[in-house]
């Protein structure tokens, strides 16, 4: 996957935002739930401790009354340092141990020395009070403690403990501690943690995958557009981008692009039409110049005049030749150029062209050979394809020195025909190679008899108007090699 692709970045950003949101809200939820559960437990413990305190007070009152009624002296009516406390505490525990309010709550009573006086249940490992810290009677936050109780066989249980010092007259009388197992608080928190750590990442991964798929779906029309746009060139301006039927930004983008292409195509066709018109308009004045010069030359005149007229005629003929070529190119460029398409044997066509140029090759002392493995049929315009062959052969013979070889090879591979014209000339310079098919490009090599540098661009236009292409290869010191690839005729 391309890390820079829009799809990747969109998905990545989405997953990141989702994960952050989930993590933050998960953390918040966990914290809040924990605090609420603990707070509730602490409130309950505080409430119970106060209840225990009140109920012990009731015992004190009853004890005091009974003593008064019996006329028996009470050790002391003060809670502090009361020797009867141990007895009262034991009685209280015995009486209240079945109080449903105290189910799940352990009440411990400690003396001022930190010794356990009575307990509703035995909680192993929680029988001591960190007593030195009870002075001065504990701050409200220090009253709460978490205690780990360990049984004889090693099992542990966690408890929340609330220490409630009972103070009378500014002195510590005894200490009530209530404990409640932490399991009812910790179990839901554990479950919540599980949900947050397993479920949320799962949801993030899943929705990331869905987001990637959705982003891919959204982006797919863009990829189609890119593929279509790649096929658009100045020679092939007819291609339009596919417009997704979604009536969204992407379909508007495609429509806008197509509108722009319409205007560009119009501009190009206007330009082509313009050059075609210019070429046409030039034909009449050139016809006049040529005719007048030719007639003047036929009708005598002094030798000096004839010299000038002949020279003019050569230039006019050159111009006419140029205009014919420009018209040829303009017509080939216009898709749907009026061409006489028939099924032709390219091998036979090449064979005839080679025979026509054989005399020229022999004159220059060049070996001219044809290699063809049999008939190769293409759909094409006979005159245009012959022209293409003549241009390539003429070029090859022009640049090959005496004793060299020019070879023409026709073959088929796959659904295509390959026509190769190779020579053993000096080859084409590296600087010229990419521009050899450009219009009006004249390679650094000297051209005998001028020329406008349009021959090879016409060859290219012919190949392209037949749905094919032309390539050139010129390894240093190994001559040059032109390859024309045309589609085979559908038989």
């Amino acid at each position, binding site marked *: 996957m391309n890390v820079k692709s829009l799809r990747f970045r969109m998905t990545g950003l989405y997953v990141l935002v989702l994960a952050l949101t989930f993590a933050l809200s998960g953390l918040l939820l966990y914290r809040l739930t924990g605090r609420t559960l603990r707070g509730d437990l602490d409130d309950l413990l505080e409430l119970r401790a106060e209840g225990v305190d009140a109920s012990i007070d009731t015992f004190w009152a009853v004890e005091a009354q009974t003593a008064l009624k019996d006329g028996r002296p009470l050790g002391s009516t003060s809670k502090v340092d009361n020797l009867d406390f141990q007895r009262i505490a034991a009685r209280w525990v015995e009486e209240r141990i079945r109080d449903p309010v105290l189910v799940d709550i352990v009440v411990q009573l400690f003396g001022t020395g930190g010794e356990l006086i009575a307990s509703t249940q035995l909680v192993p490992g929680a029988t001591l009070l960190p007593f030195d810290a009870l002075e001065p009677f504990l701050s409200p936050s220090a009253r709460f403690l978490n205690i780990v109780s360990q049984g004889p066989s090693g099992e542990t249980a966690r408890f929340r403990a609330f220490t409630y010092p009972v103070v009378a007259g500014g002195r510590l009388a005894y200490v009530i501690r209530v404990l409640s197992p932490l399991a009812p608080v910790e179990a839901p928190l554990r479950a919540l943690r599980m949900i947050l750590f397993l479920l949320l990442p799962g949801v993030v991964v899943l929705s990331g995958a869905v987001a990637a798929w959705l982003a891919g779906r959204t982006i797919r029309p863009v990829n189609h557009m890119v593929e279509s746009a790649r096929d658009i060139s100045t020679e092939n301006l007819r291609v339009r981008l596919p417009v997704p039927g979604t009536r969204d930004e992407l379909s508007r983008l495609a429509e806008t692009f197509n509108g722009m292409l319409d205007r560009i195509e119009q501009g190009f066709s206007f330009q082509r039409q313009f050059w075609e018109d210019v070429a046409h308009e030039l034909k009449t004045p050139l*016809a006049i110049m040529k*005719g007048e010069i*030719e007639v003047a030359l036929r*009708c005598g005149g002094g030798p000096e005049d004839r010299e000038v007229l*002949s020279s003019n005629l050569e230039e006019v003929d050159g111009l006419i*030749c140029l205009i014919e070529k420009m018209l040829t190119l303009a017509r080939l460029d216009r898709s749907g150029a009026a061409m006489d398409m028939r099924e032709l044997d390219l091998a036979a066509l090449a064979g005839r062209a080679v025979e026509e140029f054989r005399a020229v090759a022999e004159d220059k002392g060049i070996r001219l050979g044809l290699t063809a493995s049999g008939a190769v049929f293409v759909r094409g315009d006979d005159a245009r394809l012959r022209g293409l062959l003549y241009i390539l*052969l*003429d070029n090859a013979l022009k640049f090959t020195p005496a004793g060299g070889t020019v070879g023409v090879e026709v073959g088929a591979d796959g659904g295509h025909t390959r026509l190769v014209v190779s020579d053993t000339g000096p080859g084409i310079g590296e600087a010229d190679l990419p521009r050899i098919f450009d219009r009006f490009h004249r390679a650094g090599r000297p051209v005998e008899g001028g020329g406008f540098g349009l021959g090879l661009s016409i060859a290219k236009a012919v190949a392209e108007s037949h749905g094919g292409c032309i390539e050139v290869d010129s390894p240093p010191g190994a001559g040059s090699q032109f390859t024309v690839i045309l589609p085979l005729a559908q038989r």
Partner: protein
Amino acid sequence: MRILVIEDERKIAEFLKKGLKAEGYAVDIASDGEEGHFLAGTEDYDLLILDLRLPKMDGITLCRTLRAEKFAAPILMLTVRDSVKDKVIGLDSGADDYLTKPFDFEELLARMRALLRKRGAAEATRLQVDDLVINLPGHTVQRASKIISLTSKEFALLEYLMRNAGVVVSRAMIAEHVWDVHFDSFTNVIDVSINHLRSKVDRDFPKKLIHTVRGRGYILKA
């Protein structure tokens, strides 16, 4: 021979008139379709040179009208339009030949001669210039009773030169008539073929028949 030139481009009409007169033709000029139609109906012409783009009545319509009126003389069309389709339309409307502007004046003369000849006696089977004789059906060539053997292209080239004996033929004309090619990549082929033909026809004889006319082309003359 009397020729009617129907051409609205004054300068073209003028050089045609001047050049054709120098060749011994009598020439009338009409500068629009209606005038051309009128003249063609009143005078007796051996050949019409007809421009396609004309005011008042265009060349195709005029050509059809004339043929519908049983106008018999050959018609040579002149036009700047050179697509195959245009040529077919022109020839279908009743024209005998079709020449695109700009053209070689020699080409025009050659075509006119061919058109005028067609009207005359049956096609010749034998052409002779000086002591050079070619027999068309038999494809044989003789010079001073010596048989010369030629390839078929050389024979076609010699035939074209002999049909136009005494006038200059340009390389473009040769390319078009002998090879049916309109590409200037072909000039080398023509020059080499002429040289080969020369070596067979002229080399062993003191009198040379095939001559090069610098900047214009070739001529075969006694």
